[in-house]
């Protein structure tokens, strides 16, 4: 048994712009409630997510990176012991162009049942993706409220 969520959104943008939005800290900050990722986005490179107050939220490693189509991140929470103890999750982002629309699929999974980490991220992804879609399509995110 595993725990898995699949999120899909269609955005009126190009795969290149979407890739840039997913990997550029200044861009990310605008739709990810002030959170940024640090990495050089190359396979085997370290990756981490930094909260607006400077704390490290999650760490991991880039497993696959195929610009602008596919990004796989080994991902573990760092500041909640219960989540950290579950070990690494895997987050796969796939970008596919469909006409003038770009499809973004995010699969976040771990090979244990009822994962608390997957449950914890499940509240965040829909809001982040709605914000990302709005930012890419209109130039403005829906909400800039920072995470606690």
């Amino acid at each position: 048994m595993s725990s898995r969520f699949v999120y899909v959104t269609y955005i009126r943008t190009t795969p290149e712009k979407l890739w840039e939005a997913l990997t550029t800290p200044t861009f990310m900050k605008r739709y990810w409630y002030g959170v940024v990722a640090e990495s050089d986005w190359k396979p085997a490179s370290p990756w981490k997510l930094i909260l607006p107050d400077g704390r490290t939220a999650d760490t991991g490693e880039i497993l696959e990176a195929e610009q602008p189509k596919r990004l796989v991140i080994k991902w573990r929470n760092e500041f909640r012991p219960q989540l950290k103890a579950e070990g690494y999750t895997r987050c796969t982002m796939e970008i596919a162009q469909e006409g003038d629309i770009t499809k973004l699929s995010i699969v976040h999974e771990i090979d244990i049942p009822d994962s608390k980490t997957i449950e914890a991220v499940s509240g965040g992804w829909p809001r982040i993706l709605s914000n990302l879609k709005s930012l890419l399509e209109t130039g403005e995110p829906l909400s800039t409220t920072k995470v606690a």
Partner: protein
Amino acid sequence: MQLNGCILDLMSMDVVFRALADESRRALLDRLFERNGQNLGELCDGLRMTRQAVSKHLAILEAANIVSTRKVGRSKLHFLNPVPINDIAERWIGKFERGRLEVLRELKRQLEGHNDEQ
């Protein structure tokens, strides 16, 4: 809310509302909310609907992007994709209301005795 790309947005919202406007489809979403990633057989189990009907409803939910699917081994698993519903919520609920709504929801949960969620 700017309406750039509005035709796509409005069209897809129409599809989402239409997909949600059916009790059987909402029941299927409830099942996926309870346990995400089920195949057709699991979703049919215990429902008073034919396999064909469930399959048809799932296709409508998938077309509206409220359900996404993945092939895992031999089976096709269905996942509740909350992103389009969240887009709708964000559109009208707005950033300023969220905090207050969460307080109200929490109050309701406490009063109704469902405080085992967190």
